[in-house]
């Protein structure tokens, strides 16, 4: 039955999601009545200016922030039961943040192996797996360095490696490459796309870069502030695999223009 088949591929279901911080006259509505469904392997960007609630939405899906109203389901399991997060529902989730969030008391390879260590994987196996993933993201020479000795780009590579080492099914990215220079950012975005496509990872990216959203995503969700809400969802009809040359094409430029228009409509 086609209905069931679609249910089966359903990865994320966000419904009627509202988050209010504080109460009384000082209450701030971070996101209002957001709906979003995603299929397995889909890459969706949440695009909007600051204050549009995109990070809050991501953090609620991640299980870091509880919703005021509405529900989030990952593979049919509710992430939130009131203000209690469900460990089982968020188990397939991995997340990257704006800052690399590496721990200075561990070396690069120890940082990358941390998720495996927490999951109870033995030292030998976790070091092997962490080393392997470090090599694929270009950190081979830095395995035993301290994070503080790395450049910003290298740190985010290590952070990406840490997010991928558990082979997550769901990757949540909160502007992870926002602070990097354009060249490093392009290189990491290409690597990210490769990995997500290869492992069929479902990905949500929070960004305020229109070109980045258009380039990486299957679908771009446009959000607007005051009140924070979803204003549009637009499919990105570009074939995969995508290379940087896509960004020079007319179709891409046109899409960027359309997204910019949608963003300004929401203002």
């Amino acid at each position, binding site marked *: 039955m086609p209905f069931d088949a679609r249910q089966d591929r359903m990865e994320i279901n966000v419904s009627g999601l509202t988050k209010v911080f504080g109460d009384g006259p000082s209450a701030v509505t971070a996101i209002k009545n957001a709906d979003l469904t995603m299929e397995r392997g889909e890459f969706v960007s949440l695009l909007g200016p600051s204050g549009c609630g995109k990070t809050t939405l991501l953090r609620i899906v991640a299980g870091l922030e509880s919703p005021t109203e509405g529900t989030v389901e990952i593979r049919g399991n509710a992430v939130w039961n009131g203000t209690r997060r469900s*460990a089982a529902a968020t188990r397939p989730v991995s997340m990257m943040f704006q800052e690399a*969030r590496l721990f200075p008391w561990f070396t690069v390879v120890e940082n990358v192996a941390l998720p495996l260590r927490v999951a109870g994987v033995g030292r030998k196996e976790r070091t092997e797996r962490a080393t392997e993933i470090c090599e694929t993201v270009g950190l081979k020479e830095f395995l035993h360095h301290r994070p503080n000795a790395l450049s910003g780009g290298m740190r985010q590579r290590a952070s990406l490696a840490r997010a991928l080492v558990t082979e997550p099914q769901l990757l949540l990215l909160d502007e992870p490459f926002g602070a990097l220079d354009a060249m490093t950012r392009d290189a990491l975005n290409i690597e990210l796309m490769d990995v997500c496509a290869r492992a069929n990872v479902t990905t949500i990216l929070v960004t305020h870069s229109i070109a980045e959203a258009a380039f990486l995503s299957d679908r771009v969700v446009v959000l607007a502030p005051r009140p924070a809400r979803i204003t549009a969802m637009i499919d990105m009809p570009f074939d995969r695999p995508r290379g940087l040359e896509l960004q020079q094409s007319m179709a891409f430029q046109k899409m960027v223009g359309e997204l910019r228009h949608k963003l300004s409509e929401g203002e």
Partner: protein
Amino acid sequence: MSERTLKIALPAISVCLFLIGWSLYVRTAEVSAFVLPPPEAILVALIEMVQTRELWDHALVTITEAVSGFLIAVALGISLGFIMARIPPVEWAAKPFIVLLQLIPKIALAPLFILWFGFGLESKIVIAAALAFFPVFSNALQAFKSVEPGDKDVFTILQANPVQRFYLLDVPSALPVILTGTEVAVVLAMIGAIVGEFIGGNEGLGYLAVAHLQNLAVPELFAVIVVLAMVGLLLYTLIGRLRQSFSAWHVSSETA
């Protein structure tokens, strides 16, 4: 001369000048040896004392008291700091006692501890611990409270259990600040042990100092003070080294 040689030579020269000045002053101004003996007399007393077993026995007693008190203070300070940082109601309930503990000069409790714990080692250990507790505790409380929320998010995403959070995140985050507190604490523990020995008992360097004072053996009294300074320096250096080796990665080790 290079900056490096100057940094070694100048302190040595200034100390020598100070000692020569001291010696000359005592001789020319004819200061009574009961008030201020010349440094060479102190050195002679020190050399004689170092050769006796008695000094080492007393020193060992003081070190045992100070180190035991220090270790108790560290264990209590870190565990209470952690509990209060994680369970705020406990901190609110304990707040009046913390403020009180902060305000009273803890040294004033020393006679009370002698009354409660007797003239032996125990009372001195308690005094040392009471003095050393606060800097460890307050630094631990502050440090455990200020673990980065973003770092906690990472551990939440990893679904780390409370024990893993404690030893993989909380302790390493807080350690540099806690160790800074222990540097202060070890000096206070030493003071606590000595004051305890002043008040009661017949062992330890503090007792030895009082005994020499009563005999008006002033050069020996000075020699004991020198030994005390050496023991203090030794303990402080040990803790300092420990802090540096644990927190080489931490920003505060560069600035502090």
